[in-house]
């Protein structure tokens, strides 16, 4: 019964979303219809929520007559992963997509804010159509409530690799980001329909963009962290097409976060901001297409079904067609921006946007190139990390070198000499880092430059906080405490980018890795410590059995113990790795255990990695997310005050 209620509610939500679309787009001049639009949007979100709760209930009760449950759950699975199983699969994740879209639409409709009535109602209308598109796809091409007859006695189980807290949280976070970009998209289309994109419009756009960007940042970081400790490869970013699919919208959202500031504060760059909003959502849809269609050979692409891929492609074509069509038609009519000098806060943000957009373009080309070559009959090829390292890294380096100047500039006309004077200590620190790194690494230029850029970003962010605080009055601490939240949010995010850079560069350039065979009792010297395999034995977990290897790690400061497991889930033919990680200030010792080595008595394949300062990568990403969150708080606070 529950599945039928869920399907019925989802169908109701679809009808309501269409009504929301129609009412919103038609309500432009009548307040009574606007009220109805809000109520319809709320009802659509409510119906989606009930549908989603029904799906979760089906998973919790292990109702294997529902196909999605049978394929992705198992009665032995811990409760929390049965719940997470509701969105840890294709069908459920599409329902989540629809739910988030409807919820955002309802929240947006409820908190109307300062926007013009017709602009607001058109945006709600477009959002209704976006939700309707997602629901059509969910109900007709990947219905999570489809029944299975006869029902199996037992589910196939969730992929054990996905049975993990970081990965349970990763899709909802990523979807909040992807789907969060639908509101800027709806607002952009509404602005084009309306023929105006003023400061009030940008003010409505900014919190949603910040929300989407923050969620994308945290979602990507969670995925990366999961890959790091769960896959047992010791890596955190692979330039895999599926990763690129989330990185491209992130880059564009990052540009949008910045260009929306210019439009809000100065009224300029409005048509560019609109274009970014359309592109950002377009890339989020493209990402969904790439992941769902299986057109790309990826380490993690799943749900290989060309029919679904084509459906997403059709939705993408409609969204982008409507977006770009309207843009071509209406954008030239938007009010012209006010001017600014070549050296100013505006121009700094223009360059920021330019760099981020080019980076997104390069990632797009690298990701789609194999598809284009194959379609043109050029054979099967792959574009791997060397391409992205050679193209994206220098672009980001240039962007990061310019970044600390941006906040130092004033609006309209900036003073680059003054900015450089204030940044002089940061420049000196970065140059010192460069020289020290060059000498200590025997002239390895690339990591040395990377580390210097990281230090430059951190020092630049601190300099900005300092110069802003110096303007205040009173004791130093009081001055720093009195700084506006927006100063903090920006600085934390920018310093986070520096921390991430240092972590990424150091981890990539200086990681040590070794594969060997060890028998119990044997030891090896690795990365300044002695690692001894003590014993290997079998253990039983709640729904798996495992081989566990215990190690002793002797360091200068004493001995530690560490264990790594290889788990076998009865529902899955392949084992999974639980790595042993010993974290220190300098980085992680990372041990994974493999199979017994054939031909050598009692020996096991062991992989050792030393990943220097790898935590800085995740700490940096977290700081960037925190910066986004603080900014979101600051922006929503200012929204309540009369402009």
């Amino acid at each position, binding site marked *: 019964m529950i599945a039928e209620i869920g399907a019925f509610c989802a169908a109701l939500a679809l009808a309501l979303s269409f009504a929301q679309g129609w009412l919103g787009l038609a309500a432009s001049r009548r307040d009574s219809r606007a009220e109805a639009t809000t109520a319809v949007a709320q009802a659509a979100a409510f119906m989606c929520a009930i549908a989603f709760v029904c799906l979760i209930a089906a998973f919790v009760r292990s109702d294997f007559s529902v196909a999605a449950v049978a394929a992705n759950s198992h009665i032995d699975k811990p409760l929390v992963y049965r719940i997470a199983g509701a969105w840890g699969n294709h069908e459920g994740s599409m329902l989540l997509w629809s739910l988030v879209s409807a919820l955002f639409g309802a929240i947006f409709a409820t908190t109307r804010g300062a926007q013009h009535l017709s602009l607001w109602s058109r945006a709600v209308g477009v959002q209704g159509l976006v939700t309707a598109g997602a629901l059509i796809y969910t109900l007709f091409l990947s219905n999570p409530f489809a029944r299975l007859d006869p029902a199996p006695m037992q589910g196939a189980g969730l*992929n054990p*690799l996905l049975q993990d807290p970081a990965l349970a949280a990763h899709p909802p976070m990523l979807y909040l980001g992807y789907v969060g970009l639908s509101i800027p998209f709806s607002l952009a289309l509404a602005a084009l329909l309306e023929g105006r994109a003023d400061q009030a419009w940008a003010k409505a756009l900014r919190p949603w963009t910040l929300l989407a960007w923050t969620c994308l940042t945290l979602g990507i970081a969670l995925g990366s962290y999961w890959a790091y400790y769960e*896959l*047992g*490869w010791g890596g955190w970013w692979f330039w895999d097409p599926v990763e690129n699919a989330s990185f491209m919208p992130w880059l564009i959202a990052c540009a949008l976060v910045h260009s929306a500031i210019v439009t809000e504060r100065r009224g300029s760059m409005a048509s560019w901001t609109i274009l970014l909003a359309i592109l950002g959502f377009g890339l989020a849809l493209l990402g969904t297409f790439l992941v769902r269609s*299986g057109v790309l*050979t*990826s*380490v*993690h692409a*799943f749900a290989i079904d060309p029919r679904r891929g084509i459906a997403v492609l059709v939705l993408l074509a409609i969204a982008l067609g409507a977006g770009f069509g309207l843009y071509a038609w209406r954008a030239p009519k938007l009010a012209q921006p006010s*001017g600014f*000098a*070549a050296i100013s806060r505006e*121009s700094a943000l*223009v360059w920021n946007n*330019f760099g981020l957009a*080019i980076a997104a*373009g*390069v990632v797009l*080309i*690298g990701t789609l*190139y194999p598809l284009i*070559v194959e379609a043109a009959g050029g*054979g*099967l*090829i*792959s*574009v*791997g990390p*060397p*391409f992205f390292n*050679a*193209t994206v890294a*220098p*672009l980001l380096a240039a962007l990061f070198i310019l970044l600390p100047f941006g906040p130092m500039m004033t609006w309209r006309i900036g003073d680059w000499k003054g900015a450089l004077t204030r940044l002089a200590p940061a420049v000196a620190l970065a140059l010192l880092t460069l020289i020290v790194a060059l000498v200590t690494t025997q002239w390895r230029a690339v990591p040395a430059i990377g580390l210097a850029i990281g230090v430059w970003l951190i020092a630049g962010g601190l300099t900005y906080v300092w110069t802003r605080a110096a303007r205040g009055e009173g004791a130093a601490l009081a001055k720093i405490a009195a700084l506006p939240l927006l100063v903090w949010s920006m600085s934390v995010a920018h310093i986070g980018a520096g921390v991430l850079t240092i972590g990424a560069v150091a981890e990539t350039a200086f990681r040590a890795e070794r*594969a*060997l*065979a060890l028998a119990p009792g044997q030891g090896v010297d690795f990365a300044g410590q002695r690692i001894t395999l003590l014993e290997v034995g079998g253990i039983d977990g709640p729904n798996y059995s495992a081989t566990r290897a215990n190690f002793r790690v002797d360091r200068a400061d004493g001995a530690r113990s560490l264990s790594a497991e290889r788990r076998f889930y009865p529902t*899955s*033919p*392949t*084992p*999974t*790795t639980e790595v042993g990680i010993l974290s220190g200030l300098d980085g992680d010792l990372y041990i*994974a255990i*493999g199979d017994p*080595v*054939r*031909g*050598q008595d009692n020996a096991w*394949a062991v*992989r050792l990695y030393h990943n220097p300062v790898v935590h800085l990568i995740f700490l940096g990403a977290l700081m960037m997310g925190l910066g986004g969150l603080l900014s979101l708080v600051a922006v929503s606070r200012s929204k309540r005050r009369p402009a």
Partner: protein
Amino acid sequence: MRRRDQRLMMIGVAGAVLVLAATLTFAGLRDSVVYFVAPSELAEKAQAGQRVRLGGLVVDGTLRRADDGSNHFNVTDGAVEVEVRYDGLLPDLFREGQGVVAEGRWTPGVAFEAERVLARHDETYMPREVTEALKQRGEWKGAQ
């Protein structure tokens, strides 16, 4: 500088950066694109020392570990078997009888030196390239 000149300068710099980025991109694509080959195509398509992806099925009973710690196994597409040597760590999902993609260089008459071995983390995974190659050879037993 007048505002008009400033704008022209910005457009000029932007154009130069764009050209630079495009040059980097296409040079990067030329240098780092890796072609996929099946074992039977290796001799005709891959020049010695060229970086390629070799895809096929791991032949049962061929996986062994040499004294120097390297892994050796044979990859087949049903027509030709190629020996692969790999110094690194085989991924979790690496199994005899299953699909695999090895990225590296081939020396005719010797072995395929893999720098990376890929197996996806999904138990039903068969690399798409391998599926295509097996279909072409009529060895494909799966769906479609």
